[in-house]
């Protein structure tokens, strides 16, 4: 795994952000966090992230709506949904609106990292990058 992505973690759970931010950084990824959709969008506007990991429930907007917003502006952005809320409909909506994957918490770090790589490959090839 040569490529080290710049990952934006979006979740309203402070503990989750703290732990996973630390873990991903230990593996050599650059990580930033956001606790709301608005914050996520403003971080995306800086052009920094290459991958977004998005919770399905956010304080200011539901994750699917946030996903739509992100995909509207940055269609080639790799977005993974990661949620404690296992819902078929949300999963399908997520994929239909351009999320590369819909994963359930808790997730092993190694599994998450693999999913990030696969998601990034798939999204890139979809957009001819």
């Amino acid at each position, binding site marked *: *795994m040569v490529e080290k992505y710049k990952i934006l973690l979006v979740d309203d759970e402070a503990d989750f952000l703290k732990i996973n931010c630390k873990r991903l950084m230990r593996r050599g990824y650059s990580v930033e966090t956001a606790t709301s959709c608005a914050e996520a969008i403003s971080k995306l506007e800086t052009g920094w992230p290459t991958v977004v990991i998005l919770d399905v*429930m956010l304080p200011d907007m539901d994750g699917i709506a946030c996903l739509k917003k992100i995909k509207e502006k940055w269609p080639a952005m790799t977005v993974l949904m990661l949620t*404690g*809320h*296992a*819902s*078929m*409909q*949300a*999963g*399908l909506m*997520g*994929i*239909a609106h351009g999320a590369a*994957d*819909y*994963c*359930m*918490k*808790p997730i092993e770090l*190694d*599994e998450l990292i*693999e*999913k990030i*790589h*696969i998601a990034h*490959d*798939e999204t890139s*090839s*979809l957009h*001819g990058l």
Partner: protein
Amino acid sequence: MNILQSFLKKFFPSQILRSQQDITELQTAFKRQYRNFRSLLTANNNALEIMAEMEQALAMGQPFSMSFVRGRITALTTNVYKMTQFLTQLSDGKYSGLATVFNDLTSRLENILMRQPAVPEGKFIMPLSEIDRNSADLTGEKMANLGEVLNHAKLKVPDGFAITSSASQHFIAANNLEEEINRRLQTMLPDNLESVYSTSAGIQQLISRSPLPADIEEAIMAEYAQLEARQGDNVLVSIRSSATGEDTRNSSFAGQYRTQLNVDKEFLLQTYKEIVASKYRSQAIIYRLQRGYRNQDIAMCVGCLAMVDAVVSGVTYSRSPENPRSQWVVIHAAPGLAAQVVDGSAPTNMYRVTREEPHKVLDRKLSYPDTTQSLAGEKAFSLSSDQINELTRIALRLEKHFGSPQDIEWSIDRSGAIIILQSRPLGLLTLEQRDPELDKTGDEESTPFLMSGGATVSSGAACGPVHIVLSNLDLLQFPAGAVLVVAHPFPEWATLLNRAVAVVSETGQVAAHLATVAREFKLPAIFGMDKATEVLKNGDMITVDAVGRRIYSGRQETILAQAAAPSANLMENSPVYRLLQDALTLITPLSLTDPASPFFTAASCKTFHDITRFCHEKAITEMFQFGSRHSFNEKAAKQIVGETPSQWWIIDLEGGFREGLDSKNKFIHIDDIVSTPMRAIWHGINAIPWQGPPPVSFKGFGSIIFQSTMNPNLDPAVRSTLTAKNYFLVSKNFCNLSVRLGYHFALVETYLSNLLTESYVSFQFKGGAADETRRMIRIALLKEILERFDFRVDLKGDALTARIEKKPTPFLLDRLRVLGYLLMHTRQIDMVMGDQGMLQRYRQKILTDIDMLLKMENKQDDKGAITNGGKV
């Protein structure tokens, strides 16, 4: 026309001149096509693995939770959906019929997942005088039984009322807690006790801190005021959990929830909330997970009962719990409140009393929880013979009333009246009916034991390392598979019972809650084993023989073998189990098996498995057709040559051929192929020469193929034009091989990635020329060998599918070599499979060969082994 010729025509169309630009565009298009194809395969891989996990969960009897079911189905749905999307892209929108089938299936699945238990509608409060068995949905089993005791068995119970399930539902709903609770439970790690405890504590706090809706508050206080009017101002009450589904015959939920004694008016409402919250105590969460109950399957009802000023309390069993057919009643009694008897913390008197009148005391035993307490006194206490008589009559009356042996909690108040606090079925106490003395064999006598004594509270035997638990800290470190050793059988230790293999306690008896749960989980348990926490040392391997009431050092196979009994599936028929069962009917059955059948269509897909099968097959078709559709001969099939041409054809998808290869050449030398998985298979095919039998004449490698293609009378097992040939479809790390060798059809597909999620090997095998019995014997042999090499094998008729997923590349390469070997060496051995001796011989030869093959590989570069170019 010969099929082979038509095939060649397809892949070698007359040359069309193309500009460099055209070719670059085509290459880009192909690359995209190939990526979609691979993504589809990854999704397929995930989907098949998830389906296998769910089938296994149902079959193995291992507990699984609703979170598991919901999580797996969500993951499956998204993967199947991705497959349909990728196929749409691969095929430029063909197969649009899939969407209809998929949407129909998901909405039916959604209905199954959303299935909710009926929520009873009713009053928030019901006084005991209005409650009986029919109120169980509203008042919980415990209060319903108590109402029955009062109103129909006409016995005395404490004055009081029930706060119903409607009230607790309303409380949770008004605070919008359900979704948050489910979210927390979904993210909990059930195997990690710390996670269970913190989730449990968090949810309980969440509930306890939420405000009670005013209407519930008013209703409770109004009813309490009436109780005060009858029992005196600020009457102390016990607040008891009374969950729905509790204390039924199959699930005891013993000691799961809270009961709070001596609550006064001021703390009434807060305590009510805490009892409602105790639905999420850690032991209750674990218990529900083990038994297949969802949170919504259990509604918390609460009993509010005036305290009994108890002089003596106890538990009566209308029959011996060790032996449900026994002809005596068992009474455990202790001074003070009943709670001490059931949590195992007080010294108790045990009486065995005849069921026939006049009731006679058969024997009486005094047991102390530990030595320090017994020194403190209290030995003067005993029941009078009148009390014993009366308790026995009550037990028999309740047994008759409820129609089954009963487990009864009671208190005797200052006026001497016997008050029934609870009566529930004794159905769970399923100790085998046998005398421990009879089970003793000479062996046991000769084996020295570490300790003996105590009482069998749950029969059986088990072996594991000792883990002594005296504090919550010990509890957190409890390893799975250990023997739980405790000083007292506190109900909170029940949290560990899904990890423990046996329980040993220094104190306590058969009436303890922990004993009930141990029996339910079929864990051998000995209580009253004096000094167990001193004699046994953490980490010592011991065998607990609960029947013989002995503890042995080390693993005692004889004793374990005697006790071995098939363990019950704790989940069976629980709400979660039934739900998964129903969901799987829409998921796992495979009806699309033959790609050549006219019914192999999108509209014929009936399950998710069908959809994955369909997408997979059509994706391969699309990949094959890409080359011919675009007359793109750079990517078309080449014949593999070694020293001589073979009958194997290969198509490069991306990077499977050495760079700088002459793309116009119709032949390719094996050394020019750089596809890693292909070369591993090739090595397996060629490393060990095939010696027959059967002694059928053939020339070189492809003779059997020609035989079958030239003989139209042989009914091919699979008629798809695509799969009727030996093709490798390769990239650097991908290989799809379809083979017809002899009269069987085989398909190997693999992708080797440094990402485990993407890595897999799959193998399909079908057909043969021999009669069905012989074919089946061969396929059983294949299954056995594949399983030996870690494949997950599924057999349907004479069609075998085998898969391995998510393993590192070297591991998978070895499996590919094995498959290559099997492809060659199981040819036509079905012909001789009638003979057992022959079968043995082949099994032995195959295993020896494979062993040699894998060792060979470790010594030399795979290139070295591939020299004979497919010639056998």
